[in-house]
């Protein structure tokens, strides 16, 4: 199955150029500046930046050619055979000195108090060219600094107008939140009409800040926190969404003070030179004063500090009591999609081998359980078939149930790049989300009707002969069943069910089927339904019928939500499988693991999250061990969750903060955050990437695997590891898809699974030759549309949907403690269509009540046509107006994922 990664190497023709009397062979498409840089010839520049167009603005890279005349900018001079240039003549040095003296005549030289001290490209050149600082009286102080946004400031006195920030916004971000205004000496970088950036389309990705060569653009958290020369630089993997961005941190020993894209984008295969607001600005929770530093034990209802010894002894004692009295299955555990692979591996090993239960699950149950189930059935494994950077090469992209630009901002940029490259974009989403602006077709289906429109597309594809016959014949089975099912879904019927215009549906079907390389991107809009698994199967049908899977840039791509949700699934933090999706109830596999782990292992699959909560409510589960999860905000029907957790005899929570869940715990164990540890994360494209420790953890916090190990010792099951790398290697030994992923091999490029042995370079895209099912074929499944569990009625006339927003993450354990984010977006909201608002006499910003059959919350209304009439949307991040008080815990029978995406609700105006 493994498909060797084929690196695209261009063998460009070369030409000979002479630079400063030396002849060089250089690529024919290089500029003189690139040729010089490649050969270590120092040509100064302040406006050139890799990844951005050359603008020749700074005039420092001027060189002289044989032709004579005015010097020309090396950055915009293409090489040609026989070209001769001089880069360091007296005339050029004079010109550069003049340029630098002029720049410095307008720029402040407050180097003593500048954050950028030690990293300022202007200061470095001023030194190199020995400029006369007193040449001019000069100006400066023309403009007030721009400080009116929570994230960063622009000090115009430090700005040399190199234009890199403006280009970064335009060329990388496809935005134009900032530009040049004014003429002559009044020229400055500013948002249009000098508005605050918060009033523009700025998404605060910080690309502009990263591109600044001086101290003009500076993150506000950086101010006063350290000068460049005082700080260390370490890169590691972001802890937010599943994209897996590599980020460079500036830090002292124990504090992070700044974050940026890495110097060399080639060392960041998941994100290149892109980042989002959370990765760039919302790391400050790591430094937060409320971080847990000591174990805590609840005594007489109050939490008190305890030693590790005491806390672990007490925890082991309580859990053993429960096991002795009620059996091992009376305890359940939640692993964590934000912990490392190693920690999840050790955790599930502890639960299974040391404690003796398969009651292990984690929040993947709430996001992509149906993906794992659905794609597992259709293809043989449940993960993105392609890589992040293949998205830009697709000819058509179908996005459904993914608010890509907000939930996976860096992938949103990939999609926009694809569109720039000419790809057709089809969006199927009830909401007018941001990416709709880039879409060629936007089908706004009624929430919960996905099988209908997907079957409808397949109906058109069959009807119009757009099936990829050869692929279907050779690579798949059970096509007849599909044909039979979708015959019942002509577009006109689909229009009735899903509210999607029949003609538009036909157009979408053709656009998708006729593309050479069509890629499906989906997320929880597809998975979080009582028909979640069938939804996923339907998309798999679509891809297989048109041959759009098993090739580069074409496939089925579930976008994973958490930094390591893919890894937690891969490493067996699920009740029914060991690491590598090996079934616990397969006697042969079970035996293998008993041998690996030297323990008797339970053979029955354990409980899922939602089942655990129910079991706790009914008293069959009496103890829980929660590692880094927060079900008190993330799970549906929160009143039930709370009841369940309160029913427990013993709850131990291991986290970095006292989360809403930890507040109910008997013992709280302080863990280290992502920036304080090593190990690996597996991102959404199946790439295993190593973490690097950035700062020391606060107080006595420990890495999760250490804590689990010390607990295991108390169960007479020693799990001692000298380092996290030993665990990485153990994973490789017991997990075939991770077979070649050993610690020694891991560098910034990471490795993509499947990677079976140490000679395997990993797999860029899946199923090139065969699927992962036993017979190697993909399987079609005829899936029928069923109504969601709850549909609007007189009492609850609205369709409530929930999801994410750009600025917050999950239960806000992290973003809720980010100064800038909280300054910018402190409050929850419910999106309400203007027509509905008018009908209920509700104004924008007005606090209203939203209720479902399970609960009621108060929340400010955001009146917007992002949502269609009759639909409301609430981001689920906010505990104080928790969407999950309202959501429906009804499960998809196949994957046990709750129907978080759609339930019936009503709204009320408050007096």
């Amino acid at each position, binding site marked *: 199955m493994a498909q060797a990664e084929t690196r695209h190497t261009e063998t460009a023709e070369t030409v000979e150029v002479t630079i400063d009397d030396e002849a060089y062979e250089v690529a024919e498409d290089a500029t003189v500046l690139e040729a010089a840089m490649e050969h270590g010839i120092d040509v100064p520049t302040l406006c050139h930046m890799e990844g951005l167009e050359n603008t020749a603005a700074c005039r420092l890279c001027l060189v002289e050619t044989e032709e004579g005349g*005015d010097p020309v900018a090396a950055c915009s001079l293409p090489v040609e055979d026989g070209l001769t240039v001089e880069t360091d003549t007296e005339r050029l040095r004079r010109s550069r000195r003049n340029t630098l003296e002029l720049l410095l005549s307008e720029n402040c030289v407050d180097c003593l108090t500048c954050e950028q001290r030690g990293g300022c490209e202007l200061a470095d050149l001023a030194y190199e060219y020995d400029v006369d600082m007193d040449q001019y009286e000069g100006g400066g102080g023309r403009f007030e600094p721009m400080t009116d946004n929570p994230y960063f400031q622009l000090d115009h006195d430090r700005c040399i107008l190199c234009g890199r920030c403006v280009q970064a916004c335009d060329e990388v971000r496809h935005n134009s939140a900032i530009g040049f205004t004014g003429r002559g*000496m009044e020229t400055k970088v500013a948002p249009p009409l000098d508005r605050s950036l918060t009033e523009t389309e700025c998404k605060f990705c910080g690309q502009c800040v990263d591109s600044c060569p001086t101290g003009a653009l500076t993150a506000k958290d950086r101010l006063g926190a350290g000068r460049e020369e005082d700080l260390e630089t370490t890169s590691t993997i972001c802890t937010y969404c599943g994209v897996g961005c590599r980020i460079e941190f500036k830090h002292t020993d124990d504090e992070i003070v700044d974050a940026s894209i890495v110097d060399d984008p080639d060392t960041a295969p998941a994100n290149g030179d892109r980042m989002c607001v959370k990765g760039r600005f919302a790391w400050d929770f790591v430094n937060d004063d409320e971080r847990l530093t000591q174990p805590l034990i609840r005594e007489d209802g109050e939490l008190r500090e305890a030693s590790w010894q005491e806390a672990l002894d007490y925890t082991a004692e309580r859990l053993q009591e429960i096991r002795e009295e009620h059996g091992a299955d009376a305890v359940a555990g939640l692993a964590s999609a934000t912990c490392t692979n190693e920690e999840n591996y050790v955790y599930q090993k502890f639960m299974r081998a040391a404690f003796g239960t398969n009651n292990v699950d984690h929040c993947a149950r709430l996001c992509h359980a149906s993906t794992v189930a659905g794609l597992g059935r259709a293809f043989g494994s449940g993960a993105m078939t392609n890589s992040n950077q293949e998205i830009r090469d697709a000819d058509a992209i179908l996005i459904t149930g993914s608010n890509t630009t907000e939930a996976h901002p860096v992938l949103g940029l990939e999609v926009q790049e694809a569109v720039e490259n000419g790809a057709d974009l089809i969006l199927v989403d009830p909401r007018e989300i941001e990416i709709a602006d880039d879409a060629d077709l936007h089908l706004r289906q009624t929430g919960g009707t996905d099988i209908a429109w997907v079957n409808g597309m397949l109906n058109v594809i069959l009807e119009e002969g757009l099936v990829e016959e050869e692929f279907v014949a050779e690579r798949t089975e059970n096509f007849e069943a599909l044909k039979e099912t979708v015959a019942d879904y002509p577009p006109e019927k689909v229009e009735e069910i899903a509210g999607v215009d029949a003609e538009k549906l036909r157009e979408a079907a053709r656009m998708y089927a006729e593309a050479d390389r069509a890629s499906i991107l989906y997320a929880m809009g597809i998975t979080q339904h009582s028909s979640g698994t069938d939804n996923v199967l339907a998309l798999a049908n679509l891809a297989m019928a048109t041959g759009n899977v098993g090739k580069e840039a074409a496939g089925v791509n579930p976008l994973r939500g958490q930094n390591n949700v893919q890894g937690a699934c891969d490493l067996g933090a699920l009740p029914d499988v060991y690491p590598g999706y090996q079934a616990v109830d397969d006697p042969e596999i079970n035996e293998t693991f008993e041998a690996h782990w030297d323990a008797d292992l339970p053979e029955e699959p354990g409980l899922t999250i939602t089942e655990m909560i129910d079991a706790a409510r009914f008293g069959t589960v009496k103890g829980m061990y929660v590692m880094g999860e927060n079900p008190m905000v993330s799970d549906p029907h929160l009143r039930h969750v709370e009841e369940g957790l309160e029913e427990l005899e013993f709850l131990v929570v291991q986290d970095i903060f006292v989360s809403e869940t930890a507040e109910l715990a008997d013992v709280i164990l302080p863990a280290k955050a992502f920036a304080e540890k090593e190990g690996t994360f597996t991102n959404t494209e199946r790439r295993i990437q190593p973490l690097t420790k950035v700062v020391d953890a606060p107080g006595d916090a420990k890495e999760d695997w250490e804590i689990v190990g010390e607990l295991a010792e108390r169960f007479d099951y020693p799990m001692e590891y000298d380092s996290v790398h030993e665990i990485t290697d153990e994973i490789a030994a017991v997990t075939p898809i991770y077979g070649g992923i050993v610690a020694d091999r891991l560098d910034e490029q990471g490795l993509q699974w499947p990677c079976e042995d140490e000679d395997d370079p990993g797999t860029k895209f899946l199923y090139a030759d065969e699927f992962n099912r036993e017979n190697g074929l993909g399987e079609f499944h005829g899936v029928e549309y069923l109504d969601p569990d709850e549909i609007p009625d007189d009492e609850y006339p609205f369709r409530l949907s929930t999801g994410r927003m750009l600025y917050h993450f999950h239960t806000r354990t992290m973003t809720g403690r980010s100064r800038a984010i909280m300054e910018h977006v402190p409050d929850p909201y419910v999106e309400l269509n203007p027509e509905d608002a008018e009908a209920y006499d509700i104004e924008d910003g007005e606090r209203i009540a939203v209720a479902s059959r399970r609960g009621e919350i108060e929340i400010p209304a955001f009146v917007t046509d992002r949502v269609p009439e009759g639909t409301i949307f609430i981001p689920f991040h906010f505990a104080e107006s928790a969407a999950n008080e309202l959501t429906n815990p009804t499960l998809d029978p196949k994957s046990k994922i709750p129907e978080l995406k759609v339930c019936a609700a009503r709204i009320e105006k408050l007096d």
Partner: protein
Amino acid sequence: MSNAADPPADDGRTRVITCAGTGCVSSGSLDVHDALADRIAELEDVDVALQGSETEADADVPTVGGADAHVSGCHGFCEEGPLVRIEPEGILYTGVTTDDVDDIVERTVRDGEVVEDLCYHSPDNGIYTREEDIPFYRGQRRIVLSNCGRIDPESIEDYEDENGYEALERAVTQMDPDEVWRAVKEAGLRGRGGAGFPTGLKWEFAAGQDADEKYVVANCDEGDPGAFMDRSLVEGDPHRLVEGMAIAGYATGASTGIVFIRAEYPLAVERIKKAIEDAQEAGYLGEDLFGQGFDFDLEVKKGAGAFVSGEETALIKSIEGKRGMPDPRPPYPVESGLWGQPTTINNVETLGNVPEIIRHGADWFAGVGAEDSPGTKTFAVTGDVQNTGLIEVPMGITLREAIYDVAGGVVGDEFKAVQIGGPSGGCLAEQHLDMPMTFDSLQEAGAMIGSGGLVVMDESTCMVEVARYFLSFTQEESCGKCPPCRIGTKRMLEILEKFTAGEATADDLERLEELSEYVADSSLCGLGKTAPTPVDTTLRYFRDEYEAHLEGECPAGECALGESAGGSSETGEASEPMEGVQ
């Protein structure tokens, strides 16, 4: 006056043509026209109706016995406006007001008599009846402006009557595209926008580009203060531009042309838009022109008023809706211009010459003007001269001929200097008066033809102040992109201000020279590279004035220093030497 165009068909009708160029309009010519039209209509029944108007196609035009009231574009003789021309006699009335309308209609139109009071009276008391005899016109050679002041710019028929669109038809139906650019190349036509790049060569490059879409752009972003050549041409003869662009499109393989025109030229915008509509209707623009499978159409984009947008790459950005900021070259616009496609950008006057080249042949054109700079050049003459206005003269005539013979000589004191080529041009001195004006000779002298501004200055002008004035313009118009232009010109300006305040030192003079050379050397685009030219040329030809300022004296007594010292200025006027500049 010798015109390239043939005379209008003599149908025996009298045409009363009022100048509706911006200069005359601003002095009330439209009222004059309206009054003339009314008067002619009133008289219609009375006496001359019998001569009939059977040939008159346009019923809206009031007639009096075969007389029509028309408007025209600029004659160039703006000093004497409003102008009224009577055809076919070629009588020119100057300084006409509504009070003169009765006289004109009753005496000239009805009775065929000349109203002598309204004729041009030269300073030496000569009285000139016919426009062609006026010295201002005698020294000119009007090719590009041949229709200006004669035809109704809003009438496509008028243009057709002057053999309009014949050249386009000939090119499209009888010539291959490469024959067209070859003809332009052999004619030796050079770009009238400033640098004098060979137009045919530019077209050849563009024609050689392989692309799905190509563009032709007419650069009518005439930003120089005091320059109004392009405006006059577009206002006075818009179809000439349409025809020139269509020919350029045919030669280079473009199917879309864009007229990029200053929003500050509302009349020109209106006229070119009407011309495009009429040409579309008449089948000179659109699809499958002349049944030869050639598609070409035009659109108008208005500039946002930034001087730098006249620079080709900034102009492209501006058309694309971005801030007008220059890009480095290569790639050149003919390789990758508008929307990344090959784009031929020509100045309005350049394009205006094209139909004449096609009609009369490359040899004819090459024979006009100077050998290295064939053809004519229009200049906007202002400053201390008798006849300010718009002139068209053969390339290669001397400054003396232009200033003294055509523009009527210097008023006020003796001639001192002439700023040629707009604010980025150079200041030449008496020693250059007998130098033939060609692209190359002017460049050698440190100036340039530029867009064709000619500002004549007399002895009372302070040359340091002149440099300061022009630099202050370009300084403010810098797009801000590159440090030499943005900051370098500012520091230069500050030094010049020290000079005019009497505070400059020898170090300042040295720094000024250093910066002048540096800014020209190191700037990104033409604006920056030429911004120091007024400083550079005044330093070259009037260095003694700078040195006098170092000693605290302004020889002309005109700048701030001169004023405060009560200098030697006779007029004692404040420091605005460019007062005459429009």
